[in-house]
């Protein structure tokens, strides 16, 4: 059953997966190739320039992890939504079992993306002589990428697997935050609700903390 569900998910998500795999491999390679203005002079690089260059690629990894997770989770449910879930519900397995199989399939499809990023990071780091004091962390970067992509996949998967009503609740919470900020500003205050909520979610101890911090292939 898992194989069958994985196949269907691959069938309608393969272009996304292939795109993310290519991007996952290419980003670390390009980040090193373009470091130091693309001069590619290895040990002669200025360590600080190299670190700054690596840091500038951090948001790209974050965006790719978020995109891979969100796109795959949306595509996981789209055909079932289109058929009003009649097919899924008429299959001889419990609802939680079906959801688990779909979730598992999505996570499996994220593996090649993280793997491609790890290989790309390995290729980039072994082909680059680093200045003294700097080290490459391909494994840590790939692991962080994998966790972030699974997290974004899980969150959107959970929202997309719910009913219209539960999606409405999620939307209502968001609108509530916007409204709270609007009311605060109307009364002359400084709107901080969204900012502090986002700050809490993306803080190092927050749910989405993994998306923040240093996404560095090469670091001290």
């Amino acid at each position, binding site marked *: 059953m898992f194989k069958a569900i994985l196949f*269907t998910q691959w*069938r309608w998500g393969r272009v996304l997966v292939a795109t993310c795999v290519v991007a996952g491999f290419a980003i670390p390679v390009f980040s090193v190739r373009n470091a130091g203005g693309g001069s590619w002079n290895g040990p002669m690089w200025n360590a600080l320039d190299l670190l700054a260059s690596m840091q500038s690629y951090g948001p790209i990894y974050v965006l790719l992890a978020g995109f891979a997770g969100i796109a795959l989770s949306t595509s996981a449910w789209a*055909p079932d939504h289109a058929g009003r879930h*009649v097919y899924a*519900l*008429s299959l*001889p397995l419990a609802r939680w079992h079906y959801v688990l199989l779909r979730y598992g399939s999505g996570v499996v499809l994220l593996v090649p993306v993280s793997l491609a990023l790890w290989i790309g990071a390995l290729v980039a780091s072994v082909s680059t002589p680093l200045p003294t004091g700097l080290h490459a962390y391909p494994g840590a970067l790939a692991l962080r990428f994998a966790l972030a992509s699974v997290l974004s996949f899980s969150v959107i998967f959970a929202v997309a697997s719910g009913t219209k009503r539960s999606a409405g609740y999620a939307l209502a919470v968001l609108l509530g935050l916007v409204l709270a900020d609007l009311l605060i500003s109307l009364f002359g205050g400084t709107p901080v609700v969204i900012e502090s909520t986002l700050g809490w979610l993306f803080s190092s101890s927050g749910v989405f903390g993994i998306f923040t911090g240093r996404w560095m292939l090469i670091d001290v």
Partner: protein
Amino acid sequence: MTHAIQTRDLTYRASKTFEIRDLALNVPHGSLYGFLGPNGSGKTTTIRLILGLLRPVAGSISVLSHSIPRESPRMLGRTGYVPERPHLYPMLTVEEAMRYHAAFYPSWDWKWADELAATFLLPRQNKIGGLSKGETGKLMMLLALAQRPELLVLDEPTDGLDPVVRRDVLMALLDYVSQTSATVFISSHLVHELERICDWVGVMDRGWLIAELPMQSFKNGIKRLRVSNAPAMLGDAPFVVLSREPGEGAHELWLVRGWQPPMTQFFDGIGANLREVVDLDLEEGFVELLRTFRQPQS
């Protein structure tokens, strides 16, 4: 008599204006049960309740001795379902859809699936999204049959299909039923189609089950009588008078259910004259039944 499907006091509220009320359905094992009703009468909702796709507000459902919705996964493993609208994934090919479906049913019969695909002339490498309505209908029937179910639940399986495809689909269904003791629960508003194949009939209207009886009784039992000199009060008639309407002259036209020839004596007893007994075919009987249900006799 044991029942493949049995509901008791089944209630479901679909909206503020429509609900299924106190539904007591009895589908005998091994029967071909025609589930008739006009559009919007609650046939599809009832089917979804039976399969556990919807959860009832009250009442009980038993399908193949499984309590629904609690045991619906086990029941669904023994049931083939063809929904009203195509539900398959459009980006899969016919072949892939067959493989996908087969993965969930240990009883899947590949040999027969291949035979059906050949009989139905299904293009196995074509995507489902590109199939015609007839081909999609045939594929859905193939998937339901090749899993070798004990119960087939078919929701308007031939609606919108051309006569040739409809015949192919029904032939495959009857072929399967003749080989097995499977129960078939088939909903339709195509009365003549059900008249040919079903041995039991249930009629839904506005969320109520208004009749449930063997097809033969339904066909033979509903008659239009031309009666003269009938008193206003009938007393205990041995049949059910569904309606009484003035006819030509002093005659009245009665629509009755449960009619049998010896009942002519009843009219002598009340001083009335029975002039004519008119047979109604299933469609006429169905229409009259709905009409009398919606406009109770005065």
